[in-house]
């Protein structure tokens, strides 16, 4: 799987390259600025991009903007955004097109290599990987709101994991229940959120969006 990596700090970039290579990813390019990223994404057509939010030359949210622009040119281009801090505001912008293939994680998540690589693969496969911090912030705040208040504690737990982008299998493993039970919970959640039956993966993105839009 070919990856374009954008990170301005040399130590982190180097570490990420090594980690991704250790897990059999092919590094198509490892760049350190916004313009280089835009060029690499257009020319190399990678399977997934791993991008730092703050990039030179502006040192603001250049990485995020480059990723969003690239996704406009190539809808569904899988992008995993890494940041020193996570904000609902940015999560909403990333998910807004409803296409999936989006991840938004705190940089610390690379501490757990397995989880991080899992997130990269999920995003590359068109799924989502939202940082638990964004999701838990939302849930703690929205727990009293309708229709989130209508969710049972168990369903909320499923929602939290689903919003992070986990598959039913992964959720079942984590909650120590059967996959069937998870599937039942998710369909309950979808109907409570008023999401029509359609492609399952996209509904998961929509469920997260439904959350974010209530912000």
């Amino acid at each position, binding site marked *: 799987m070919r990856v374009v990596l954008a990170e301005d700090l040399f130590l982190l970039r180097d570490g990420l390259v090594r980690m991704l290579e250790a897990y059999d990813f092919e590094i198509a390019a490892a760049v350190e600025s916004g313009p280089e990223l835009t060029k690499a994404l257009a020319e190399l057509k990678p399977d997934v991009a791993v991008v730092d939010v*703050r990039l030179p030359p502006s040192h603001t*949210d250049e990485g995020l903007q480059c990723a969003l622009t690239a996704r406009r040119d190539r809808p569904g281009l899988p992008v995993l955004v890494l940041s020193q801090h996570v904000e*609902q505001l940015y999560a909403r912008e990333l998910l807004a097109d409803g296409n999936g293939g989006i991840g938004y994680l705190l940089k*610390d998540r690379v501490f757990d290599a397995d989880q991080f690589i899992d997130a990269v693969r999920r995003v590359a496969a068109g799924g989502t990987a939202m940082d638990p911090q964004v999701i838990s912030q939302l849930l703690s*705040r929205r727990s009293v*709101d309708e229709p989130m208040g209508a969710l049972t504690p168990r369903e909320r737990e499923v929602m939290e994991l689903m919003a992070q982008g986990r598959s039913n299998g992964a959720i079942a493993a984590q909650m120590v229940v059967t996959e069937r039970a998870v599937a039942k919970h998710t369909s309950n959640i979808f109907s409570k959120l008023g999401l029509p039956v359609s492609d399952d993966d996209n509904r998961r993105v929509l469920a997260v969006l439904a959350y974010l839009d209530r912000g």
Partner: protein
Amino acid sequence: MRSAESRVRTALRSGGRAFVLSFEALAGSAVLFILSLLSFTLILLGVGLVTTPWLTQAVRKHANRRRLLAAQWSDIRVPVPYRPFPKDVRDGFTGQVERTTLIMKDPATWRDLRWLLLDMTAGFVLLVFCWALLVYPVEGLVLAAGLWRVFEDDTYWYAFVPVDSQLTGLAAAALGVVLFHVGVRASRPLLRLHFVLARSALAPAPEELAQRIDRLTETRHEAVDTAASELRRIERDLHDGAQARLVAMGMNLGTIEALIEKDPAQAKKLLAMTRTSSAEALTELRDLVRGIHPPVLAERGLGDAVKALALRLPITSEVTVELPGRAEAPVESAAYFAVSESLTNVVKHAGADRMWVDVHHAEGMLRISVTDNGKGGATIGAGSGLSGIERRLGTFDGVLAVSSPAGGPTMVTMEIPCALS
């Protein structure tokens, strides 16, 4: 001899300058004074709205020319205190009304008017003395040289000397010489005096400046104090938090090194602990950074930073932002933390379940209002969080207004003068 010659030359130059200036003072100032008065009166009829901005421009040009000459000729600096028009004054008739209002509010406009009156009277007299003392003696010499013959029958008064013979003619010449001497000595000081007079009328009153200085001194002290205590807090947080954790991690790693072969299981446990520790250190550093300069503020500016702030609150909030650009970083930061503090106040004390934040920029002012549907009764006073916000804004000449009747709703409005880029 040389020095006398050069002294006469400087005196003559001053005289020449005064001669030219005296026409400007009489004709220019008088005409502008009368027209200004007329124009101000006509504002009531609407005509003044058109003429006043235009005329004020002319008056300011006239005054500025005098300022320039004062600096060039007599080395007297007269401050230019005109308030600039904000960049967003509209075109057309409304713009004219706005401009006229701004002009009438500017104390400099009234000082200019006072100066015009002074300039066409006392200022003019000083200038006339300045050149006449150099020109009048010439007449005395001419009288002595033979012109006295014309007045043989009919006495002509040269100053206080009645000229009707060669003798009195010579007396007139002697007086002329004396006057010329006086003129040579006095012309420069007289011209200078004229400019001093202009300065006294044109410069802002000392009380105005003194008040401003007091205010600046006060806010500077507060800003320095706040910055210092902020630094102490950051130092303490680093010392007790992240720094301590890093030391502990280093120690753990040492222990792990010793254990790794003897007791791999224990070493593994310690490694997991160390990793948790490093994650916690990161979280602490992140919170610290948010307290110093919030990342979204740095990346997106005030509008999105306030939006992101509102998203983290447990109360439903609506944020409206209308900012065509970004303010300077210190202003943005002050505004952000002021908003942050007032939102915290709402969450803690207001007992509200909804709030509205409005951020916009107009007429050179950044205006932010925070409204909630809580129980009201908030006051600015000693110890209240609101006075902290007031201090924060004061550093940038900003102001805070609170409307909070008992029973609510509470509306906190902040204004900071600033330009957007």
